[in-house]
């Protein structure tokens, strides 16, 4: 297993200790190079150690995590944001396919995150994702037009209107695009439902999240909906009523 190098940046001593201990205990493949107690220390440590990724606490006095990233300029490492609570930030991470951990940390999630980092091609599309992240953060009320997914062969930035539907594939999600392309993301469908529901997507079935803009025909008798790319997406019985209501509003 490939070893990953990491930095922990958190102003709270307990926060740093905790992550350090958790990583040691649950993710032996990760080597923590250094602990930094502020953004300033963090920048110095990043420049010195050039880690594969950084655990970055957002909520720090003086300079917070986002400000630190802006100060760094070029970001050549993956980031795992660590936050106690911030709805807006979490939404932004999802749009830009950044990993994040919520405090207190769930060891399972920590392991899953590290697993994703290992399979990811290094520092893919980082600048574009970072600017998407910052845009989403600065205008939390505005809907982003793009979404980033970490696919098996790299990170993709997709235009949301071009997504026809998403289909669950175990813990993964397959994106079907207008162009006929498809990509598999390493995040589950539920995560995408959280952010895409406000973008006109509807969870028609346990395994389907469909873009209402791409519906061609609803086949009542069979419980299917014909999408613009010719595919059929299932509509479960439980969701039928809600789905019809949505269609009427359309």
């Amino acid at each position: 297993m490939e070893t990953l190098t990491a930095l922990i940046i958190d102003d709270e001593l307990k926060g740093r200790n905790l992550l350090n201990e958790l990583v040691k205990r649950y993710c032996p493949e990760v080597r923590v190079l250094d602990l930094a107690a502020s953004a300033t220390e963090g920048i110095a440590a990043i420049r010195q150690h050039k880690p594969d990724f950084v655990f970055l606490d957002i909520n720090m006095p003086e300079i917070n995590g986002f400000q630190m990233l802006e100060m760094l300029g070029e970001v050549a490492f993956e980031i795992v944001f660590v936050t106690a609570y911030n709805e807006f930030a979490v939404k932004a991470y999802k749009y830009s396919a950044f990993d994040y951990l919520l405090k207190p940390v769930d060891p399972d999630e920590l392991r899953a995150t590290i697993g994703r980092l290992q399979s990811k091609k290094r520092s893919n599309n980082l600048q574009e994702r970072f600017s998407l992240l910052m845009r989403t953060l600065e205008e939390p009320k505005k809907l982003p037009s793009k979404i980033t997914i970490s696919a098996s062969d790299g990170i993709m930035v997709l235009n949301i209107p071009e997504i026809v539907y998403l289909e669950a594939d175990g813990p993964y999600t397959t994106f079907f695009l207008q162009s006929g392309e498809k990509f598999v993301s390493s995040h589950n469908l539920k995560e995408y439902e959280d952010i895409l529901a406000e973008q006109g997507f509807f969870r028609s079935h346990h395994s389907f999240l469909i873009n209402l803009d791409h519906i061609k025909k609803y086949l009542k008798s069979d419980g299917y909906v014909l999408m613009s790319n010719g595919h059929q997406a299932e509509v479960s019985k439980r969701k039928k009523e809600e789905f019809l209501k949505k269609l009427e509003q359309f």
Partner: protein
Amino acid sequence: MTYTEMLPYFMGMMSMMMLYMALQYMFLRDKAYLYYKFYIACWILFFFFRETDFYNWVGDDTRLSWFVFVFHRIGFPMLSYVFYFWFGKSFLDLPRTFPHIWRIFRIAQIVILTYIGFIIIIALWFAEVDRTPWYETLHTLMRVLTAVVSIYGIRKVYQGGEMVGKYFVTGSLLLLIFGMLAMLLTFFGNTDSDDVAWKIPLFYMHVGVVLEILCFSLGLSYKNKLTEVQKFSMEQALLSEREQREIEQLKIALEKQELNRQMTNLRMRALRSQMNPHFLFNSLNAIQECIITNQTDAAVMYLAKFSRLVRLILENSDKPTIPLSKEIDTLRLYLDVEALRFAHSFHYDLTINTQLDPSLINIPPMLVQPYAENAIWHGLLNKKGERQLNITFSSDEDSLYVSIEDNGIGRKKSAEFESPAKKNKTSMGMKLTNERLNIINELSEDQALAEVEDLIDSSGTPMGTRVNLTLPLL
């Protein structure tokens, strides 16, 4: 038809009219009908005595006959004027619409009554009255006077231009014109009652009276209708006014409900501002750290304090006020938990400087904590070196004073660190607390107040921030 033949018809008509007016008065209780009834009665009596041989009943040349004679010749016509004035008063509501006319009418009425009384006294006890030159002069004078007063009134009412007034004016004018005609005809001297009716002067008087009564009756009906309409529209107005009042009451109730809703909402949000998710999860994170680093005692203590704090906050959040002692307990627990989280990198002092028993003072819950949190996060954590937070409670008769003082970096420097994203979150607690203070002020007459003071040393260097909170004692 001769005049004599016509007379019973005339009298009958008048009597019917009088009866009609009496009935109308009974039903409608409009004084105008009553006065008008008397007015017609005067005319009936005048003609009755004039056309019948009353000397047959009262005896010739007796005092009673003189009295009756004087009364029929002077009393009834003159009294008819008086009733005419009163009718005008009720019919046109003179005191309100034409107070000037009413004043003149009343003077004229006194003059007329005095005149009647004077003539009766003279006739009964002192001298022959009938056909004496002085009496004829006086009587003519009186007739002219009353005519002038009537014409004056008619003119004024006509100028007033109201519809009811027009009936009055027309009726009065008709009587006046036919009366004048009758008077003119008397100069030609045809008084043969058995001649054709239209050749007799008094016939025209009758015509005038009948036409006038017709006009006045029409006027009364019209006025009656008008009153009905007015009454109806007044009822409508009253109804809509009542509706308006009901709507207003509903509005007030709604506003109150809205205020209550806001209050509940704010209480929820107050709960949220103190149970700041950041604080909650970071505290739990710190406990997790204690566990994983095997600091079991610290973890147990931390968890116990944290639980007690959450319990207190939940208990307090649904009460409008709590004893100060409870608020102090909550505050102390909060500060302990924060101090643990920051590994005792700041110190705090809680001073209770009040003569009053803290368990007997009631204050709205969770008002002090947001200021303390603010002081820690913006004043102290950004500062290097010694960090101190002093919270002092003091009181006088009607207010509780809380001072929250930190030796942090000051508001100005703190603001420089604020990024837009950060501001959103951190100023939330402050915003909610200010809203709550506003609501408290709206609900009670006393003023809750929060003042922020920048502390500087003698050279002007910032030394921290102090918030002075004034709360009305409830």
